[in-house]
């Protein structure tokens, strides 16, 4: 037991600094700009529910990496939740396969307003490498209204984190 604690306390800190995340690319906004009210509401505390609508799991791995000791998304008040009823934002990955269409709609309806939908990864944006296949519906926007997109196949956790922080103006210059 004590070897375990010693190991915990002797491991060096690995959390990356916020400043290194601030890249200058602009985020892509679909639909309306976020209202100031909604931005203020979710700035300090954001609950994300991740929906896998038939993806290659690459995006899920990157999203999982967000909660590790390197990126540590929790320090910004963002956490992942189990139920869409608890969620503020739906992060949808994967080109929406036919079987997951209804489930995605149900998830969207189960989330209380105000809510945001983010399409993560090229698959979710426009079908990615599966575009035009008979089995997918070519992106989340054809099923539910999308507010933001995070491009990449898959986007690295650094990218995702940077987009999230930019969405809520965490990098706002005071």
């Amino acid at each position: 037991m004590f070897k375990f604690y010693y190991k915990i306390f002797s491991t060096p800190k690995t959390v990356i600094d916020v400043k290194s995340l601030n890249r200058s690319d602009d985020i892509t906004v679909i639909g309306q700009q976020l209202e100031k009210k909604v931005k203020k509401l979710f700035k300090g505390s954001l609950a994300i529910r991740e929906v896998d609508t038939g993806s290659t799991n690459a995006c899920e791995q990157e999203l999982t990496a967000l909660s590790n000791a390197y990126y540590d998304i929790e320090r910004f008040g963002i956490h992942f939740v189990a139920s869409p009823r608890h969620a503020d934002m739906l992060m949808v990955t994967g080109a929406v396969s036919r079987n997951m269409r209804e489930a995605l709609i149900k998830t969207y309806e189960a989330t209380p307003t105000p809510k945001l939908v983010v399409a993560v990864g090229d698959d979710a944006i426009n079908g990615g490498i599966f575009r035009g296949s008979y089995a997918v519906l070519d992106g989340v926007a054809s099923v539910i209204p999308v507010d933001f997109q995070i491009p990449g196949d898959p986007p690295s956790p650094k990218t995702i984190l940077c987009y999230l922080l930019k969405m809520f103006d965490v990098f706002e210059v005071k």
Partner: protein
Amino acid sequence: MDTIIFWTIQLLLVPFLSPLFIGLVRKIKAKFQNRAGASVVQPYRDLWKLLHKDEVISTDASWIFKFAPYLIFAVMIIVGASIPLVTVVFSNNFLSDLLVIVYLMALSTFFLALAGIDVGSAFGGFGSSREMTVAALTEGGLIFSLLAVALAAHSTNLFKITAAISSLSLYSFAPVVLAFLAFVLALLAETARFPFDNPATHLELTMIHEAMILEYSGKRLALIEWAAASKFLIFLALGANLFFPWGIAITMGWLSIGIALGLLILKVTFISSFVAILESSIAKYRFFRLPDLLFISFILSLIAISLII
């Protein structure tokens, strides 16, 4: 005038401080995972945000689903106002009885379990089943660990117990420590911490408390989360003040109350750090190993009682 201020402090202390200790536990767990973690005031932000969200209520839910969060939160407010926090002077005689506190919290568990079944989802049903199983078996250990100190203090009134234990000699303190160990096990069970339940899990198969609240949203979810945090603080405060009550204010002066408040926060921080370290060191137990733990809690309190009487 002073009395009114003190009563207000007693009433508001638990609801206002409780999210802080949940945040503290999460922060310590994050540090053990080598992360920075959310700040200790993060639960306050979560509650504020939840109060500003709309709700989605299931078409299968009845009035019990809508009514339960108010009852649960009301029970936590009342129990929080009736336990010895900073002073023993308010012998809040009729609400501070040991059995009244335990059974009031059983009332809140009853309604939470009913709300879990009410929505007719698979998760809520088995969450209620597990919660009632654990609650039924915890009652023995909880009542008996509190009974041990009640017998030592010749009263079941919580304030009188606090006053009596603080004047107990060190020689007769061993059974109080045993009763405290039994109480800690009951605390972990009732407040849904490791090894009984994982409060941060996303796997419904492993949920006990979380499974019942998967269907809540908006302000009702805020009330239930706040009530759960208050329950945690109530149990911590009971553990700190009933078993190790030194420093509690005997008189009503501002200075003694201030010192008592500081010591309470210190003791509660200590116990919640212990809970956080426990959660970082062990895994959640399989469900059918939990009754063994609860019977151990019962037996420990039986031993404590046999040493006291």
